[in-house]
């Protein structure tokens, strides 16, 4: 950077830079990767999710979200809100406890870690003594009970984490009073569960792994009652009236025990294995909640017959005669039930289930228990994301039509509003409507409202219907056969299995003015779609385009073309395909662009590129860019797949061999030592033969030089400086740029006269680096507007008087050429200076934070080092540089997409987008406030379970929230 400073020493420019650019990561969209714990505060109406990487995320009403990260890189195993407080406690895998709070600062709340604590046992005690297995946040809000692996219960005062040794409940105290006839009395095992008596906060039940439950009086420090269950204990639930305790066990049974007087002989009232007869899996959690007038709701997870349905992830809900086993597509982490009423003590209204890949909320008050659409935490990866495309400032008309099309897809969702309503969203309304489109492996394109903090799903387009695939289009969710037992019902939308990888979407381009959409996929298919508000039955005309143009010696070993349905297909309202181009060979489409004004689509693969006229449904021309000596591109992707397979096989063989050599009988220690020695030897070997890199200039013989990386339409001066003509530009992996002059017939003959294209120029960059971007700059040095932009927005017409310039962005350099005679004018070398290469490039407009009317266009660049740069236009000078993505995060870097206003998105996990901003003016970040509930209620009436709901709790949420709740209640009634 030093060298740029030398030029731009003028402090004025530096000040301007500060007014234009600033980098911040603003919000994470999507579903947290690898969630590991769930917590809920009924009083705050906030949901907390902990992840395996140590993140803690809080969500309330849409737009209200907080995020924190534990310094330790350990998984969050439990999250508990302190009842009626804004604090929450997290337990990490490394046995540390952390206290977090929501602190208001300048009218906005922040999530802060305010304390940490690790239990210390007596000296010399094994670590299991203090290994925390169960946490109870006592309803007093002052005590934390920690059950450990050693069977002890430690009592800690919060929020300061002060150990109250005198109140600890040691295993000895408990086991001395265990009845002699209890089988497992010699080893009660760890503390599995801790629950508070909902009507008497002095009583807690301690559930031991072996099965025994002990009701303990905190005041008198003695056991009140013993419940001698003999099956391995999984969870405990104290019913709301305090009269019964439910226990669930590892054999798939649950038992109901009555809590009698202090001296009454306890009796197992009822034991049940719901999916019984054959061995069942454990019921990991059980909850029972009463209704005002009717039988209670019983909700439990697991318990499936081991042999036949042991692989299902189910939560069963039983209410009166209704019994449903909700069948999720991924592992269940935890669940809780939200209850109605201003004090959240009424009937159960919604069941919130966190599974490994999504959050599912079931409306328990609507017939059929439909799913409520989540406004956030949506699994972006319900099918793996293969590409993304961002469109800024969508016109209202298109926006409404997309929403209308999307609403028709939501008919099987509940009409209920989102039940989690905590906090106030104070962020201003987004200044514009932005769309993020994600392409997926299963051939779908999802439309997301990316205007604000919540990435809200708007509409889903499926392209699979155009083709014959193995799937049955009617193979949908919710097709349980009558009388099936267990009564399964598929819920959730996470479905990572693609039936045909060829359907995968690789490139998307949407014209926001005309509503034309093109999507291109893995098998060389390019679909042209049009937004239609009515459903329509139509045949999609397919056009096969041979990109090889008779190139000799070609063997395509990759996949075959997709089979197109020849009969008319019924397309629902929304984007409907009307034209299809299929490249031959059917290689993945690597570049795509659309000019909706000229009604032309340009597409490219590793073999060449073509221009398609979707008005006349005719291919205009094809250019083969393949280098005949390029064997890899010639043969297609299969050979590489083979080599991966081969290396996999080899590595497996290696593992097996090492296991065999390791299998002679030696002591555990010896084996360990031996393994260590071998590891060391391997490391030493690695040092001996380190990774090396070949230093060689690129040549035309390199692989994939013909791969088309970028395509660009421009109305510019290609042949002479007085007449501008339509043109198509293509850039390849081998550093070539091809320019074609296009001749469009006059509008009145657009349908019958052919479009012609003539090769006009070809530039071979000497450094032969892949061309990743082409932009034509107008006479003012501003990038040419998008097609139809001028027609819709008169203020933005390009300067056609001054001379145009061509900007070619390769992975190594930014180079400006004059037009129409191509001669180098300016350049900025990136790779030669700092060794980084351009991975993603976009044109963005940056508004000044100081003055409303000043702004400038710039190039936003992401390098393979994960840095983002802004490069000025047209002078191609480096402006700012910020580290953004870890350089090792190759998929994150590859997934990055820039907006037209200096923001960007990239995947931080398969399911989460990180949003960042380079602009001082355009910033989308959560701004929200969570207020302390006022504290006034007799402590005896507190319901302690953070994951249950309160019986009678007095929490005063802010009036706005109350109003919102009331409003939602009114909606319910109508």
């Amino acid at each position, binding site marked *: 950077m030093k060298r740029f400073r030398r030029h731009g020493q003028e402090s004025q420019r530096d000040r301007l830079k500060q007014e234009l650019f600033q980098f911040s990561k603003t919000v994470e969209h999507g579903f947290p990767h690898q969630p590991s714990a769930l917590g809920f505060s009924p009083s705050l109406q906030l949901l907390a999710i902990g992840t395996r990487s140590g993140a803690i995320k809080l969500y309330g009403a849409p737009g209200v979200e907080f995020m924190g990260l534990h310094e330790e890189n350990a998984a969050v195993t439990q999250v508990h809100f302190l009842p009626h407080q804004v604090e929450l406690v997290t337990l990490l895998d490394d046995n540390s406890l952390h206290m977090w709070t929501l602190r208001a600062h300048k009218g906005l709340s922040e999530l802060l870690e305010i304390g940490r604590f690790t239990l210390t046992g007596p000296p010399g005690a094994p670590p299991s003594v203090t290994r925390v297995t169960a946490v109870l946040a006592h309803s007093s809000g002052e005590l934390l009970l920690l059950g450990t692996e050693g069977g002890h219960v430690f009592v800690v005062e919060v929020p300061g984490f002060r150990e109250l040794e005198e109140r600890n409940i040691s295993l000895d105290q408990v086991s001395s009073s265990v009845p002699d006839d209890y089988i497992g009395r010699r080893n009660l095992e760890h503390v599995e569960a801790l629950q508070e008596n909902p009507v008497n906060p002095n009583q807690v039940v301690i559930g031991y792994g072996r099965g025994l439950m002990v009701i303990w009086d905190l005041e008198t420090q003695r056991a009140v009652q013993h419940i001698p269950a003999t099956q391995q204990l999984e969870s405990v639930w104290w019913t709301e009236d305090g009269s019964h305790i439910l226990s669930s066990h590892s054999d798939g049974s649950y038992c109901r025990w009555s809590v009698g007087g202090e001296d009454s002989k306890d009796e197992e009232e009822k034991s049940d294995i719901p999916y019984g007869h054959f061995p069942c899996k454990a019921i990991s959690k059980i909850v029972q909640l009463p209704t005002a007038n009717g039988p209670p709701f019983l909700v439990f997870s697991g318990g499936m017959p081991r042999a036949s349905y042991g692989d299902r992830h189910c939560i069963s809900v039983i209410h009166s005669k209704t019994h449903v086993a909700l069948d999720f597509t991924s592992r269940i982490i935890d669940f809780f039930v939200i209850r109605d009423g201003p004090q959240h003590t009424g009937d159960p209204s919604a069941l919130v289930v966190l599974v490994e890949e999504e959050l599912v909320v079931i409306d328990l008050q609507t017939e059929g228990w439909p799913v409520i659409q989540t406004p956030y935490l949506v699994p972006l990866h319900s099918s793996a*994301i293969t590409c993304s495309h961002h469109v800024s400032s969508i016109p209202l008309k298109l926006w409404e039509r997309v929403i209308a099309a999307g609403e028709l897809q939501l008919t099987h969702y509940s009409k209920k509003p989102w039940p989690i309503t905590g906090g106030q969203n104070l962020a201003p309304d987004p200044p514009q409507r932005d769309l993020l489109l994600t392409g997926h492996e299963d051939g779908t394109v999802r439309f997301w409202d990316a205007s604000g903090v919540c990435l809200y799903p708007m509409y889903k387009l499926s392209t699979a219907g155009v083709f014959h695939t193995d799937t049955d289009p009617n193979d949908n969710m919710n097709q349980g056969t009558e009388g099936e037992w267990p009564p399964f019902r598929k819920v959730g939308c996470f479905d990572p299995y693609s039936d045909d990888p060829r359907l995968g979407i690789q490139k998307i381009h949407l014209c926001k003015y005309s509503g034309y959409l093109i999507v291109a996929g893995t098998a060389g298919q390019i679909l042209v779609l049009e937004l239609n508000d009515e459903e329509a039955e139509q045949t999609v005309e397919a056009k096969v385009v041979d990109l090889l143009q008779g190139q000799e010696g070609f063997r395509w070993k990759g996949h075959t073309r997709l089979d197109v349905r020849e009969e008319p297909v019924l397309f629902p309202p929304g984007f409907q395909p009307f034209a299809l181009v299929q490249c031959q060979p059917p290689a993945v489409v690597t570049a795509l662009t659309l000019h909706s004004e000229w009604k032309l689509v340009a597409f490219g693969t590793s073999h060449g590129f073509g221009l398609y006229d979707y008005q006349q449904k005719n291919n205009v021309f094809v250019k083969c860019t393949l280098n005949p000596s390029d064997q890899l591109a010639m043969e297609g992707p299969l050979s590489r797949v083979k080599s991966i397979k081969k290396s996999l096989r080899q590595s497996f063989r290696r593992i097996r061999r090492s296991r065999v050599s390791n299998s002679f009988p030696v002591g555990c220690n010896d084996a360990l030592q031996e393994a260590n020695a071998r590891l060391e030897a391997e490391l030493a070997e690695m040092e001996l033969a380190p990774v*090396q890199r070949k230093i*060689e200039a690129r040549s035309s013989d390199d692989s*994939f030089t013909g791969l088309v990386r970028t395509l660009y339409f421009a109305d510019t001066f290609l042949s002479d400086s007085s007449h501008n003509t339509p043109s198509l530009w293509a850039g390849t992996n081998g550093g070539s740029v091809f320019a074609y002059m296009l001749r469009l017939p006059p509008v009145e003959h657009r349908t019958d006269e052919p479009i012609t294209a003539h090769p006009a120029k070809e530039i071979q960059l*000497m450094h032969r680096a892949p061309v990743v971007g082409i932009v034509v700059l107008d006479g003012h040095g501003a990038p040419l507007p998008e097609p139809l932009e001028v027609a819709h927005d008169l203020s933005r017409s390009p300067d056609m008087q001054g001379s145009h310039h061509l900007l070619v962005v390769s992975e190594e350099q930014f180079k400006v050429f004059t037009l129409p005679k*191509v001669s*180098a004018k300016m350049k900025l*070398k990136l790779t*030669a200076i700092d060794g980084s290469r351009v991975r993603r490039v976009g044109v963005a407009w940056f508004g000044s934070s100081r003055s409303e009317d000043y702004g400038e266009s710039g190039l936003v660049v992401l390098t393979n080092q994960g840095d983002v740069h802004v490069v000025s236009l047209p002078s191609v000078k480096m402006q700012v540089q910020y580290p953004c993505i870890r350089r090792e995060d190759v998929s994150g870097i590859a997934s990055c997409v820039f907006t037209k206003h200096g923001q960007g998105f990239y995947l931080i996990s398969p399911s989460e987008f990180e949003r960042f901003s380079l602009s001082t003016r355009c910033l989308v970040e959560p701004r929200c406030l969570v207020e302390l509930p006022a504290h006034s209620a007799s402590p005896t009436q507190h319901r302690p379970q953070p994951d249950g709901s309160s019986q009678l709790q007095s929490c005063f949420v802010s009036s706005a929230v109350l109003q919102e709740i009331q409003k939602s209640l009114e909606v319910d009634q109508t």
Partner: protein
Amino acid sequence: MNKNHRVPSNRSLSAVEVKSKFGAEFRRFSLDRSKPGRFDEFYGLLQHVHRIPNVELLVGYADVHGDLLPINNDDNYHKAISTASPLLRLFLQRKEEADHLAFGTDSLTRKKNTVLSAVLLRPDPNRKKPPVIISLPKDFRPVSSIIDVDILPETHRRVRLYKHGQEKPLGFYIRDGSSVRVTPQGLEKVPGIFISRMVPGGLAESTGLLAVNDEVLEVNGIEVAGKSLDQVTDMMIANSHNLIITVKPANQRNNIVRSGGGGGGAASGSSGRSSDSGASYYGYSSPGGIGAAASTPSHIIQNFHPEELESDEDDEDLVIEAGGEAELIPCAPSASYSMPSLPRYEPHLNLRTAAAASTSSISINANGTLPTSASSGSLGNITSTTPSPDRAMERRSLEEDGTVITL
């Protein structure tokens, strides 16, 4: 000089106007551009028009850039005819009087006029010692050079590899490693980049200036400290047409030892003692001996700026217009008077000596020892490994380039 650029005549473009000068005499005639004929015919023609049938001649012409270039075979004769626009100016000399060093591109840009005029007006009678003609200097081009000897620590070597227009691969590999530095806190192990392998027959090997286990300190003036192996790889490839690497040779025996503190002009002389005695070699076999590092300045001064390198016409892009004729993109207008064939590198005194006297790249070794044998002697067995296993890696690195990732 201006006469060179006068307006093209309206006459038929197929004719080339020739103005030939021998001594003080001029002859004018024309040749058919499309049918120039062979060189020996042309040679005979010249002897004929100047009426010097038995005089051995050295034929030179002024090319478009004003350089004096020789005509001594069919190829450069045809080149001269085809580039003449429209006038072809010839300068004839008696072979025994000829000043061979006047030819060549490098010298002319420096002092075009003086050289030309020297040839034209003052055929110096004193310089009548007929040199032993091995070949003409223009038949050579620099392959490599050691530069900045005057400003670098003795333990470092800055090597320039001229890849320009060569078919020969650069031919070396780099790897991660660690080197020992002397810091105020004591010895410190720091990561570094090292040359790991030489491709036999490659440019790097043939120069003898680089060797396996040499530590790479800079690439084209930019320090590589703190950069990853991939970054340094990309930097080198991006600069591959004109690669300048500063290394700390693993073998410190062949260092240039300067006599005085000033350095400067004596740099390329062999004034120093022979370092074979081991005086400057501390016996550390690990890359990066401590003694060498002790004198490493924190920031290495360099005689050239990246800017300067950028103005090199090293990467002229090729533009093919619709007509189908290829032309090199004229780079920055300022560059039009610099030599098209050889990147200018003026500030380095020893480069010029090298270029002028460049009979071979090896000749510039200051100690007079042959670096090829010296540096590769102990490491020869490593360099001779076959290149085949690396081909796969090269492929892989290309795939990594993100072309296949289409997210």
